[in-house]
């Protein structure tokens, strides 16, 4: 994917950095998802054909999934791609509803900041009680700190796009197609 044209040219260094970071994180997410598929493939084939499953493959899948979701959360937030019910868009998009849109952004920022703070506490607690994953006994605290960081960045993203508008890639609208 190429940078959208309206951000090229005289646009700020910050913006081009933001896009570079976004591309980088997207590639990492893509690799994690591919790894999940490859792992399942290898595990099933290994078990069916050779009787050798991969120990803790479920455990690895769970960790990869957590990494994908929380690597993606700031990106989805920045792209304003969260699931929304848009039946009353005409109403909400009217000029006199601007205060409501600001309030909405503040609410999203606050919720994300709260989750971030709660995951910092959760991570500290997890290291205190040696919380580890079931099969491979991977310590949980670093993962919780990663989630906290992701939520903090997402909170920041929610706040920034309230002012600048969403970071939308015109070539890829990420239409909601989960249903």
């Amino acid at each position: 994917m190429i940078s959208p044209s309206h951000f090229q040219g005289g646009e700020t260094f910050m913006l081009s950095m933001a896009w570079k970071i976004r591309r980088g994180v997207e590639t990492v997410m893509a690799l994690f998802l591919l790894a999940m598929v490859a792992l399942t493939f290898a595990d099933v084939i290994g078990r069916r054909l050779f009787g050798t499953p991969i120990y803790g493959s479920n455990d690895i899948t769970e960790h990869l999934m957590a990494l994908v979701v929380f690597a993606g959360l700031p990106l989805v937030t920045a792209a304003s791609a969260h699931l929304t019910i848009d039946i009353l868009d005409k109403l909400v998009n009217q000029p006199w509803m601007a205060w409501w849109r600001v309030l909405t952004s503040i609410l999203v920022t606050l919720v994300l900041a709260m989750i971030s703070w709660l995951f910092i506490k959760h991570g500290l607690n997890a290291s205190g009680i040696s919380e580890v994953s079931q099969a491979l006994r991977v310590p949980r605290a670093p993962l919780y700190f990663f989630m906290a960081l992701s939520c903090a960045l997402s909170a920041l993203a929610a706040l920034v796009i309230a002012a600048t508008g969403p970071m939308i890639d015109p070539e890829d609208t990420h239409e909601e197609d989960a249903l």
Partner: protein
Amino acid sequence: EVLTMSSWVPPTHFIHTDFLVPLTEKIAEVTEGRVTVTILPAPLASPPQHWELARTGVADITWGNFTYEPERFVSLWFAEFPNAGTNAEAQSRALWQTYQTFLADNAAFDGVKMLAVGMFGGGQLHHGSKSVTSPDDVKNQKFRMGGPIQEKLLSALGAVPVAAPATKAYEMLESGVIDGSLHTMESVVNFRLEDVLKYHTVFPKGFYDATFFVVMNGAKWDGLSDQDKAAIEGIIGEELSAAWGRNFDLQSPAAIEKLAAEGHEIVEASPELVAAVDTIYDTMVADWIGAAKGAGVEDPQAMLDFYNETYTALAGE
């Protein structure tokens, strides 16, 4: 005072109907209705989180398995080793006494009021398609299991451990993810695994075991009136632990009878297989003594001996 209880087995499970519900009734009875317990319609978190739910006060009373948190309660691992016995009531009483004597002040148990501990009377080895009696029969077979001890045990026997909760066993056996699974006789029936686990290998002193807790949030306990605390003290502790064990002692013979009637093969492990497990047991104990010292137990060997002596005395063996 209304206390909440979070439980993660369905309301039809015997732990719910024959243990938790009677416990709530007894608490209401001895406090003359001043303290009642509501069992929430759905668990508030996954089973491994149930200790934390009580400790942090999200729910007031919870129960669960100590080793669902694989590294937190190292001091209790010894009770999940092979040869821990098959009489669940005697086991649970012995474990309570052990806990009271050696562990009640251990930091790992801070923040909660321990209402009971329990064991389940010996887990056994179950296979879907073949009889398993000798050490060779176990080799390279994939067994579902949970926790660090079962993993070590199976690996040492040359089997392939697959970590998953017991609720997943049916699906995994059907899809060939595993060849067999570790359960008590009772849970083969209670998890409806009779169709997929037809061969049962019995170790006379138990192949492995599981340790359970029933806990209450510490602050909530402290906040009860002295009168209510005294009343509740009368029905918890060793008595409640014994009640836990009795439930399993009732379930297992019924399960064995049912499985035998359905034509399942129930055999004893061969002396060679028992000897192989005994050898692994010795290494496990040696490794654990170091780990338990690290977890703040002064004399792990003395604690293990105390448990064994108490169990033997109680079980009349």
